[in-house]
């Protein structure tokens, strides 16, 4: 599940599987179980914001596929 979930969700949201895994790890560390649920929307929203802000576009492309 830990292998399939980041790949499926990442490909659906155009997110890097590594970024998805790191995000799950980080938000689970900070918020516990709710962090696991909210990690993907947060990293997805962060990627979209980075894509639309010029100085952060590099970080956005790193988060993407």
């Amino acid at each position: 599940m830990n292998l399939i979930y980041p790949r499926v969700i990442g490909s659906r949201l155009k997110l890097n599987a590594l970024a998805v895994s790191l995000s799950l790890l980080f938000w689970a560390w900070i918020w516990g179980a709710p962090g696991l649920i909210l990690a993907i929307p947060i990293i997805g929203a962060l990627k979209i914001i980075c894509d639309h802000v010029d100085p952060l576009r590099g970080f956005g492309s790193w988060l993407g596929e």
Partner: protein
Amino acid sequence: MQNTETLGSQQPVPVLIGQAAEEVEVLQASIKIGTIAQIVIALIAMIGLLYLLKLVLVTILVSVLLAYVLEPAVALLVRWRFPRWLGASVVVILAVVLALGLVYFSYSRALDFANELPQYTSTLRRKVSEVRARADTLANQARSVVEASKDHQKPLPVRIDHPQGVVQVISENSGTILDMLMAVSFTPFLVYFMLASKEHVYVSTVRLFPKEHRLVAHRTVGNISNMIRSFLLANVAVGLVSGIISGIVFWRLGHPVLLLHRCDQRVRNLDSLSGDVSCPPATARRRRRHLTPRCDHRRDRDRCRNSSR
């Protein structure tokens, strides 16, 4: 004479330029280090804030997700000429009723499971204690080989952990339970207000930005909405696939709480291997007849008794 000394103490122009360049480099390096330090401090402060504001932020973000889940139903009711506030309230009430029903169903299932649990835990505990006794014997033997004499040694202090009662668990975690109750009681109202005033929230969020950036903000908010919908759909797909796979596995194994039955069966099989019970393990052929492992085991035991008589 004074002018000559002053002129003599003055350095040549290239040296001065070199010193100025060095000072600029040092200044730039210190600015860079200061910037990095500021970024690190800001990151630590942000992580600390996220940790401290866990309850508020999690409640808001979960409410946003639930609002996205319920939005299609509200849109359907609005299409059927319902006022938006009425549609939102109907959908939120239905969702709350569904959630309460699910909690009640899960609670009754958990109670059933808890009633069945002791018959498995006693067997498991017995096996664990046997294994632990063997491990202790081995450890004592190893210690006797390594150490010369144990006569002068003091006995090791042993701490026994008693299992916690329900009242103790509740009293120890009362803060967490109260926080959770507060968050759960806030969530339906937040979801309702998000659903009822969706257009207003969307437009006012875009208007927070200056005019030249509003188009970008509009696109960003739209993309985030699409992303959350995709996320929910992908989660539904993953949940369906994992549900189908686990359903097939449980159907093949033949019992809803089969895992514990299997553990029990394995433990009894261990018994039979170690000679405590002289019954053979259940065969795969009988499993294919959709018999539960416990029934299999009883049948085997009866057969053993008959054969021994």
